């Protein structure tokens, strides 16, 4: 029982990370048809800069953790918005070229991070509570899991409220469904493009800071390795669906944890198998509308 609780809560924590990366990917793809390969780099740069800030002001206070999360969100948002304005926008509606540009950005930025911070992981510390454990049903759960789950839930809730109750949210939801009809109502969807990039980048930035506490370090490849699972999550959840991304993130991460423990470290393989099964049974994903 205690093992199940540990695996479940750790799975939820990892799922929270997947969701923070996948939510932006899914919204960006849903609205713009762009597969953003540079999304992992948004996460990594945010994690590095947040770490740089936190360690300068003393990483062990709650205030510095809060500041780190804020820095992560702001850096992620700004870098993402810059990417959209400078690179993606020039290639308006040319989806393959847009993907290629993000591929180039991913390759170049990871190399740059390696040049700046080296290839070795940089170890991250935080408030003492995060490194301790809490007893749940006999399992000793690392406290950082709770932080991850709480923050991801807050982000999910904020995004849902934003999408539901604001004009921009309305434009984004409509654009995901039928972009050209939105322009035909006289709305400049390109502003929404920059906005989803910014939102997605901010979510990934928060994810980066949290990931550094989950794994205990920051490394240049951190974003890229999370990105692959985030891709799987977006396909399983259904491209363009935020709720689908949340559901699939939890699903994928929990299965991964259980397979790693009970099936001899086969978590990654099981996730890919799950993807294959979903594609065979339901190619548009759990909550996706289109094929």
């Amino acid at each position, binding site marked *: 029982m205690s093992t199940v609780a540990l695996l479940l809560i750790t799975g939820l924590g990892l799922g929270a990370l997947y969701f923070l990366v996948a939510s932006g990917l899914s919204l960006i793809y849903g609205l713009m048809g762009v597969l953003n390969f540079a999304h992992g780099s948004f996460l990594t740069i945010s994690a590095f800069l947040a770490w740089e800030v936190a360690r300068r002001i003393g990483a062990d206070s709650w205030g510095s953790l809060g500041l780190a999360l804020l820095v992560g969100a702001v850096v992620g948002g700004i870098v993402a918005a810059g990417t959209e304005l400078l690179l993606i926008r020039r290639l308006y509606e040319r989806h393959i070229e847009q993907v*290629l540009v993000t*591929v180039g950005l991913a390759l170049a930025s990871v190399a740059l991070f390696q*040049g700046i911070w080296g290839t070795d992981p940089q170890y991250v510390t935080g408030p003492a509570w995060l490194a301790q454990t809490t007893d749940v049903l006999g399992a000793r759960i690392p406290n950082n899991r709770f932080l991850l789950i709480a923050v991801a839930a807050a982000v999910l809730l904020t995004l849902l409220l934003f999408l539901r109750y604001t004009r921009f949210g309305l434009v984004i939801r409509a654009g995901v469904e039928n972009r050209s009809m939105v322009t035909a109502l006289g709305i400049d969807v390109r502003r929404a493009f920059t906005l989803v990039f910014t939102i997605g980048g901010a979510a990934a930035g928060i994810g980066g800071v949290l990931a550094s506490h989950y794994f205990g370090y920051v490394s240049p490849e951190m974003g890229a390795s999370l990105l692959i699972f985030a891709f799987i999550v977006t396909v399983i959840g259904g491209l363009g669906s935020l709720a689908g991304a949340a559901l699939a993130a939890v699903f994928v991460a929990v299965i991964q944890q259980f397979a790693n423990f009970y099936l001899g470290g086969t978590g990654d393989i099981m996730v890919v198998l799950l993807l294959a099964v979903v594609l065979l049974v339901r190619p548009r994903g759990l909550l996706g509308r289109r094929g």
Partner: protein
Amino acid sequence: MNAVLVSMRRPGARWLLSALLVVGLAALPLLNIVVPGVLPGPSYTPGTLQLLALSLIFAALALSYHVLFGAAGLLSFGHALYFAIGAYGLGILLKRTELPLLLAVAVVLAGTLVVATVLGAISLRVSGISFAMVTLAFAQAGSVLIQRNSGITGGEDGLSLSTQQLPDFFVGVLNTRNLYWLALALLVVVFLAVRWFERSRAGHVAAAARENELRVRVIGLRPFSVKLVAVVIAGVLAAAIGMVYLLLQSGVVPGVASSNFTLTLLVIVVLGGVGSRWGAVIGGVVYTLLDQRLSALAGSDAIAGLPAVLRVPLSEPLFLLGTLFILVVLFLPGGIVGVAGRLTRRAGRTSGATREDPRDVIEETE
């Protein structure tokens, strides 16, 4: 270059030039050609031949990727998987079994055929960007399998080539030129195979489906099967190339199964010119040489003396290549071949011949 491309418009001349090019390349190990700044030494030395053979292998691999991306319009992020299957498959069979070389090669090719068919059939259930993500996931699973099963694959350290079953002329530094010739022969075979596919009925349907899938369906053809054929052909070719790579490098490391390796192929194809066989070849050669030179530059004293703002980016070859790639996508659609095509068009116009669409030129040079 201009003259070459202009004269390539005539099919007879094109054949002759291609044949001359192959003969010229084949003669390199027997000649003493020095190209400072591009080749590390005279053309007959093993180090240079090793680099040249590697560039031919990358050219061939880019060609196999061209079958997917250029010919069938399939954006795959998992092509490295098949290359890795070839290299690791042959490496493991040679190490673990008594199979003679040719039989081992046949077994690996047959295995690749099966894997490519199954994975291709599953991933082709989705199209476009989803296809890209799914192929990425499959390749990632392959990469994980290689790293997890270090007992068989050597894990992070990689797998070294076991030479008992190999003929002597492929073993040892002094025989590098034999491996170079093998790589050249492989490139020619791959080129002809890709050319044959593109000109076959399946190739034409694949090209039509790339432009307008709906119309292909309407006239009663099934894009699915031709796409699957493209995936399988590309996979089997990549596996064959992986096997030659294993022989040339005397081993293989898990990096060749990584998503970054596939992304490198994408960079090569775009650099050379999407949709063009010669573009893939030129891109493969240019990329390999550039990568080698940039790595040499990164380690040089000139760079070490620079201030950090310049030193850090300049000492990361992948940063420079990634940036170059972005610039090509933004400003040079059509890549190297596209630029060459535009230049020839200008040259051609002054000599009377005109051409309307730059894309024609890219297609011409195929």
